[in-house]
């Protein structure tokens, strides 16, 4: 058995420290080791995006990243985006516009969308469809996901304007 590595991570603002085999994939670290089960496993080949998390300001598919590669990283999952008392506008919008059905892709979808709206605060439909193309959904046909992201973008822009 290969030697275990000493890993430190910050996940949703909390520091974690443990020993892991170098082959351990980040998604298993999150789900099995840290009990963070929001990110899901859909393909293990980077195609579906159900495991999407944010690392250092970028969307990352955690099913194809070794935890060793993430050593020292600051990671945000859906659990860190918003909860019952502080829902993110995207979480509100997905509910309001029926942007989900079975819910399996939703954590990855919303996590990706938070980054998309940071990169492009007021995206066109085309930019949303292109920017979300790494996240697969089998239920919704994407139409209401696009609508949800548009609505959240409008909401966030309005809030930003009001604040300025």
């Amino acid at each position, binding site marked *: 058995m290969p030697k275990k590595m000493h890993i430190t991570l910050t996940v949703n603002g909390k520091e974690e420290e443990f020993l892991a085999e170098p082959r351990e994939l980040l998604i298993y670290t999150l789900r099995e080791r840290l009990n963070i089960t929001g*990110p899901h496993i*859909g393909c293990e080949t980077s195609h*579906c995006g159900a495991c999407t998390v944010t690392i250092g300001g970028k969307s990352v598919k955690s099913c194809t990243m070794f935890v060793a590669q993430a050593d020292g990283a600051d990671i945000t999952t859906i*659990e860190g985006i918003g909860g019952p008392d502080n829902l993110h506008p995207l979480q509100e919008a997905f509910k309001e516009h*029926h942007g*989900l059905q079975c819910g399996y892709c939703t954590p990855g979808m919303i996590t990706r969308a938070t980054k998309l709206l940071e990169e492009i605060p007021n995206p066109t439909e085309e930019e949303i*469809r*292109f920017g979300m193309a790494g996240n697969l959904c089998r239920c919704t*046909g994407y139409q209401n996901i696009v609508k949800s992201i548009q609505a959240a973008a409008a909401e966030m822009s309005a809030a930003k304007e009001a604040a300025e």
Partner: protein
Amino acid sequence: MKDEITRDERVDNLKGMGCSRKRVEDARFTQGKGNYVDDIKLDGMLFGDFVRSPYAHARITSINTEEALKVPGVLAVLTAADLEPLGLHWMPTLAGDKQMVLADGKVLFQGQEVAFVVAEDRYAAADGIELVEVEYEELPVIVDPFEALQSDVVLREDLVAEDGSVPDGAHGARKHPNHIFTWEAGDKDPTDQVIAEADVVATESMYYHRTHPCPLETCGCVASMDKVNGKLTLWGTFQAPHAIRTVVSLISGIEEHNIRVISPDIGGGFGNKVGAYPGYVCSVVASIVTGKPVKWIEDRMDNLMTTAFARDYHMTGKIAATKEGKITGLHCQVVADHGGFDACADPTKFPAGFMNICTGSYDIPTAYLEVDGVYTNKAPGGVSYRCSFRVTEAVYFIERMIEVLAIELNMDAAELRRMNFIKKEQFPYKAALGWEYDSGDYHTAWDKALETVDYAGLRAEQAQRVEDFKAGKTRSLMGIGLSFFTEIVGAGPVKNCDILGLGMFDSCEIRIHPTGSAIARLGTISQGQGHATTFAQILATEIGLPADSITIEEGDTDTAPYGLGTYGSRSTPVAGAATAMAGRKIRAKAQMIAAYLLEVHDNDVEFDVDRFVVKGAPERFKTMKEVAFAAYNQAIPGLEPGLEAVSYYDPPNMTYPFGAYVCVMDIDVDTGVPDIRRFYALDDCGTRINPMIIEGQVHGGLTEALAVSLGQEIAYDDMGNVKTGTLMDFFLPTAWEVPNYETDHTVTPSPHHPIGAKGVGESPHVGGVPCFSNAVQDAFRPFGNRHTNMPHDHWRIWKTANELGLHE
């Protein structure tokens, strides 16, 4: 007492049927707090995974598990030899066949389960799998069902007698060792005669390729045998938890009351999660052997290669008509590739599902259908991928035959359809292949669709485009895809629908709490359809308590009443009906309580929205909330305390949703890339419970139709290797490829359903596949195209253009 709010406001407060109530499921899903099977963690839980066959057909000469058992963390390796003493090395399939749980001397498809490695975690299990040594002796591989019926190679020696004869199967006589059944519907001789004497006959052969439902969450389970109490708990991705409990009991011998099956949140099903898979059996056995909970979760490759393919129908049709276009007869012959075991998930008496709905929406007086099921070296399955049993195949068949007939008659395909639709006044309509369609108004729907899209204008534009193309002004062609479908869903009446002898009724049990809220439990299980939202709406309208005060619970066999689960768009037609009927039982008792409280006779009060009112004295009433409390605190002569009801609903007939779809597509002749410019979908699902959810279902079903028609397939090479085992090769559309859909509706309530609802989840898939396919084919019709097989991926579209000489 004076009302402070209006009656309309009282109706709105209920959030009952007809309103776009927001989903109650979404809070947990949007916050990452869903509870899917892979989220379940139990103390000491182990992980099981399969050694799978790399060969499609081979004899197994030895299995050596010695080295695997030395791997740190590996606790056990199960093989068929270990399961045999328990009688669990084979298991019954839903189709009356049997299937190997672990390879018993041979393998019949690539990816077949050979051994089950049980370890402390996934990594140790994977290490163990690497070290299980299996020796195979390759056998000739058959991946073509026509070849299978001619071949001397016997795939299933277990189904051939010692003298070489072929005994009958579960569905009657078999013609060849690799033959499973012949199933017929309709009248052969009269149909042959009509075809022989017809003015015009169009003949076409088409292959509806093998594909896969591929929900984003794969199949899996956690089995936990509590040896102290003798109780087995099985969590899993089960679309039919109660049926799974019965099956587990029957094959394991554990009494049913000692088995608790729980379907937690399910990440999409689409038919993939109806069947019983070797992983479930092995997990249960492994839990019994080790005394610890055992989890088994498929990876994506396992999922695509081994559990639940769909379609794989080779269909040949003959359609006869007068020269004016009135259809007189239809003949359909199918060779169905079932893979190595017949594990199709159909009602027992229907080995080809409801393929006998293949006369479609048309008044066809004479018809005949023959389906031959065949074994090949492919994975078993044969599930209904987002459709009622084999209805996608049936509707694709007839909607292609109509197009081919239109070509033969040199007629417009929209007009040909209109001319042959079953008329409104003909319902209930007894079709030539046996079904009695409950209701429909096809002409209204069709005319509305064609008018909305400006069909005449589209045809004119298309004609201009053809001219421009011929003149060298454009390299793009335009296709207008039409489809009109009739679904047959809501299986089904116990008199003719059962699975493994279990009648296909469904159920609902309601408990009203003293303070006027409620819990209702059903025999179905949501996989994204939003049952917790919509069933509460049905109840809100029926019993007059707000939907927000009603919890809906499904999927725990210890608490929910028995039901056959969710697939084939049966939840609303069957469990939805049970919900309404149970609600009416609540209302009947509540009416007696209200009458007592109001000191009038039972018949002198009537239900109005959320209350019982004394007839003729609207100011005298008791709300349902008040009645609920009274049920628990008043001693009412002749009435038991409490307010509960249960209903088991056996539907008198199927329901028959229908719809009219139009797709407008531009096709780049030089790249084969289709651009879906417009997609209009009119659905008639009867009474509409939640328009928002209906639209969502339509968007999703159409997108799965787009996938199947334009690229998604499970393909094999001649050696039986699966060529599409990952999402790299197996097409799932992204947001980038998918268009915006226009949805529309008409409402023709089901006359026999308590609330008139018909089900909608699968309609868009059933109607969508032929619509996308017809659009592609229609683009090439002016250049002599008659039929090309799906999936119409870029390469195949390019090839069609090339074969028609459009690149010259």
